[in-house]
């Protein structure tokens, strides 16, 4: 029972987050979570545009989502797998995710992405 209540809570939280971003458009209303880094420096961090991208992804606009933040296509599957693993207690995360090479490629991608989005915008 103790174990199940947290799984239910986890599923509810996941669904609540998805429902929230389906109905809430961060580009139009100004209610949601603001980025302190962006507000103070004017630069874009790797996560900027993530909320807008997720909103458009839920509505099926893949191009818009790609425009706002292309990292969303990497983050959503990994977080999804992690949630699945915890709720159903199966390990399905591919092992290469934990390797050092993957981490180095990921960090390099993150840095390149952050630099380029600040140059072009």
């Amino acid at each position, binding site marked *: 029972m103790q174990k199940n209540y947290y799984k239910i809570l986890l599923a509810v*939280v996941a669904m609540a987050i998805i429902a929230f971003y389906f109905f809430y458009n961060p580009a139009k209303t100004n209610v949601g979570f603001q980025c302190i880094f962006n507000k103070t420096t004017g630069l874009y961090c*790797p996560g900027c545009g993530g909320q807008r991208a997720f909103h458009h992804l839920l509505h099926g606009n893949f191009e818009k989502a790609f425009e706002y933040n292309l990292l969303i296509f990497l983050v959503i599957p990994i977080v999804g797998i992690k949630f699945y693993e915890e709720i159903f207690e199966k390990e399905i995360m591919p092992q290469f995710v934990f390797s050092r090479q993957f981490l180095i490629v990921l960090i390099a991608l993150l840095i390149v992405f952050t630099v380029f989005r600040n140059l072009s915008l």
Partner: protein
Amino acid sequence: MENLKLAGFGKRLVAYIIDGIILGAAMMIAFIPFGGLFAFMGMNAAQNGGEMTDEAAVATAAMAGISIGAIVLVALVVPLIYDTFMTASAKQGTLGKLVMNIKVVKETGEGLNTQEAFIRALVKYATGSFCIFLFLACLFNKQEQNLHDMAAKTLVLEA
């Protein structure tokens, strides 16, 4: 150290959200008196036929400056103090972690002292306000350590 179980990303995320709600509610309550002060000042101006004297205008502006400064200071400092002292206490975790039944320990298995908890809270706050994506670092190593866990050499386990 054998039968210790890592807390997992989902539990930590829910604990983080609960902490955010608690802190947000506490800060909203703490800021209510400021609203009351401004209401009194507005009433004062309204009694003079809607026009403020110069002194009243200066006082209102000074009050606004001081209270905005205080709000910024409180918003910066309170999460740090809350996280530091809750993590260093005997409960070994913030209120959100207590609800989710998880705790923070050092890699050796002991509880944290105030200094280590402060480092952890500071790095957590910095990563949180730089980029929220950095909290996903715990998905890429087997010990599920986030950047603040690496800085303070801690693990998050099931209590």
